[in-house]
């Protein structure tokens, strides 16, 4: 398994380099001068010139890139033009927030999506199947921001059950932290649950029609054991990959969800940074997210390996 993973890591490296070049170039192509945003309402030409020099905005773009990548390799991603905080420090503050949101959303997605998928595969063509499908499709098609605002108005303003928005660190107040995160992770989780449900359903359906399932049934095993022990295990293999890939979608979805619920995570950081042309922050986040995504894929490959004994021989 080790050589397999090593090979994967080596393949991932050029991808990371390409992403870093791409992000850097994209930013410079964006219209809008970061310093005009930075200078505020009154723009003092002298200060503008100084800042341009300080942040090396006068250098040719390839020199800027080399300087950035050199520092990045040493763990220095520059400082935020807006708050003067080091980018690494900003990300260290935000990462646990987004990870918590991602994990809680994933739990919602898995707990809703997989059982619903199994159920609708087993009860194919019945009312249960149709209801599960309608619910799943609604989850996919209701926009995050709408669902989010409706939940806030209902759960927080009307019933006053959960905090309307914001974030409390787990270390500060565990219960309150979970309570604050419930609505956003539900909103994010339901959209993913729908995708998971559809895939689980089709994967289950194809497994259920295989010979070995018929054999298992013929042996007189109970339906419960046939489905959960024999069919599900094989049906889940593609779902594992999908789940890992969905983490990418989670980060993307977090951008909107964090904006609505005012959660100070990666998504909010990157949106604000793009609008403020805070180059260093955008580059830092995209790089870290890309690396994270690649590692999620590696993890999925490794899981495949564990779940599918046939691969062990290779």
């Amino acid at each position, binding site marked *: 398994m080790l050589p397999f993973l090593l090979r994967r890591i080596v393949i991932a490296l050029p991808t990371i380099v390409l992403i870093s070049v791409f992000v850097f170039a994209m930013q410079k192509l964006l*219209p*809008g*001068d*970061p310093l*005009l*945003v*930075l*200078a*505020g*309402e*009154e*723009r*003092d*030409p*002298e*200060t503008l010139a*100084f*800042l341009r020099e*300080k942040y090396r905005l006068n250098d040719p773009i390839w020199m800027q890139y080399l300087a950035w990548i050199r520092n990045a390799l040493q763990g220095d991603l520059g400082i*935020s033009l*807006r*708050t*003067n*905080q080091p980018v690494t420090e*900003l990300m260290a*503050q935000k990462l646990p927030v987004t990870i918590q949101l991602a994990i809680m959303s994933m739990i919602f997605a898995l707990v809703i999506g997989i059982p619903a998928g199994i159920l609708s595969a087993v009860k194919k063509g019945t009312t249960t199947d149709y209801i599960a499908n309608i619910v799943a499709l609604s989850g996919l098609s209701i926009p995050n921001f709408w669902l989010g*605002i409706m939940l*806030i*108005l209902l759960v*927080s*303003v009307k019933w*006053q059950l959960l*905090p*309307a*928005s*914001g*974030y409390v660190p787990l270390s500060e107040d565990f219960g309150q932290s979970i309570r604050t995160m419930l609505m956003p992770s539900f909103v994010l989780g339901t959209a993913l649950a729908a995708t998971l449900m559809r895939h689980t359903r089709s994967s289950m359906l194809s497994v259920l029609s295989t010979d070995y399932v018929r054999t298992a049934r013929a042996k007189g095993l109970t339906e419960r054991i046939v489905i959960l022990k024999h069919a599900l295990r094989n049906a889940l293999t593609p779902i594992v990959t999908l789940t890992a890939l969905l983490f990418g979608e989670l980060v993307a979805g977090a951008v909107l969800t964090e*904006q*609505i*619920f*005012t959660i*100070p995570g990666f998504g*909010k*950081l990157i949106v*604000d940074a793009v*609008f*403020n*042309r805070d180059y260093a922050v955008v580059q830092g986040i995209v790089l870290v997210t890309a690396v994270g995504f690649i590692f999620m894929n590696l993890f999925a490959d490794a899981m495949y390996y564990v779940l599918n004994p046939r691969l062990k021989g290779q």
Partner: protein
Amino acid sequence: MSHLKTAMITALLSTSMLGVAPAMAKDLRIALQSDADVLDPDQSRTFVGRIVYASMCDKLVDITPDLEIIPQLATSWSTSDDGTIITMQLREGVVFHDGTPFNAQAVAANIERSQTMDESRRKSELKSIDTTKVTGEYEIELHLTGADATLMAQLADRAGMMISPTAASAAGADFGLNPVCSGAFSFTERVAQDKIVLSKFPDYWNADAINFDSVTFLPIPDTTVRLANLQSGDIDMLERLAATDLTQANSDNSIIVDSAVSLGYQAITLNINNGEKGDNPWGNDKRLRQALSYAIDREALNQVVFDGAFAPGNQSFPSTSPWYNTELPLEPANIDKAKALLTEAGYPDGIALEVQVPNSTEPLAVMQVVQAMAAQAGIDISLTSKEFATLLSDQSAGDYYASQIGWSGRVDPDGNNHPFVTTDGGINDSKFSDPKMDALLNAARVAPSIGERKALYDEATALMLDELPRVFLYHVNWLWAYNKNIKGFTPYPDGMIRLEGVTWEE
């Protein structure tokens, strides 16, 4: 018996605590529309940053709601006859949050930092100060390069905020990561985009007027979510309630809404002479700009887009300002006049105008209404919506014909005009240039009395309304919404939240 007694005493005590004395140990939670930038008064540039400073950093002078300059850290001041020397007496017994004493030396160090630090955004505001002279422990002289009527108003804002010289010299440009001022609350913690926490400073010179143990500022950009947080009790106060949420907020008994007309304005800035695009009919012929102005029904605009919550406007100051030229009041739309002007200018069949607009809801709605109004006069407005940073750089580079943009406003009338319409003005993106305008606005900067200044601004306003490099539309009303338990809040036209004398009474 003794149990009963204790219970009774406790009950009595707790009622008296609740009823009479303002409840202490209260953390005030205030929602801001966006996150502040760097918390260094010399480097920062955002409006919300100034709201945080209002609790954290005292200034040499402050303003009243009627824009008069009043003492804060400077207790009195006098100006020499030629206007070039300002002598200030400073408050005694004031200390910064790190224990450094506040005195004339500290003021001198602060002014020097604002003027010379490379990263400083305050240079132009303090340009008129040539040197400072410490003439006593609590007395300082500001020697100016020439009379400057605008300086005191500058000292009532970020340029007059005093930071600890000890902390400033130790931290340099990184001061904003851990700011040390002398205001009512000291900096405790900041999590970018999440919160800024300040704690009551026990040694504050006016500590008796402060009734909160801490203040937490929470950036919540979405207006609906901001209001929802207030209604659910997660926050105590919010700034910039959306005009369209006013009805909802007013119908909630637990919420109080206060407002004040802002110092700023919203306008359409036209490209008069900035680059190639400045050479267009709209830039070349003031009659077209006048026609546009006549076509707009500002009262209706305010009703349609903002439910009447803002103040329609035709000058750089709102009509509530002491600087407003009352001889040129707001006029209703006059489509016939607009058409006549177009014909006179040689466009009897109408003319097109491309206006760039920031891509957010309010400016777009405003311009769509203006578009419909202008169409009645035969002006065919097309809107190009741009993300704000792009709009700004296009405007500054002259790559535009007209731009819907606003200005947050300044206490001194100079700030709403001089940078925009004088030939060398720092934000003159129209590149409007008129020797008469320059002369008037430059004279208003040095005129010794308020009466003389007013006369000059009246004349300048008349000229502006004739030339119209900016077609004024309306003035935003600052809207604060807060929990009914908050007592003693005073709305200010600068949009700040001042917590002196504000209490929490349940």
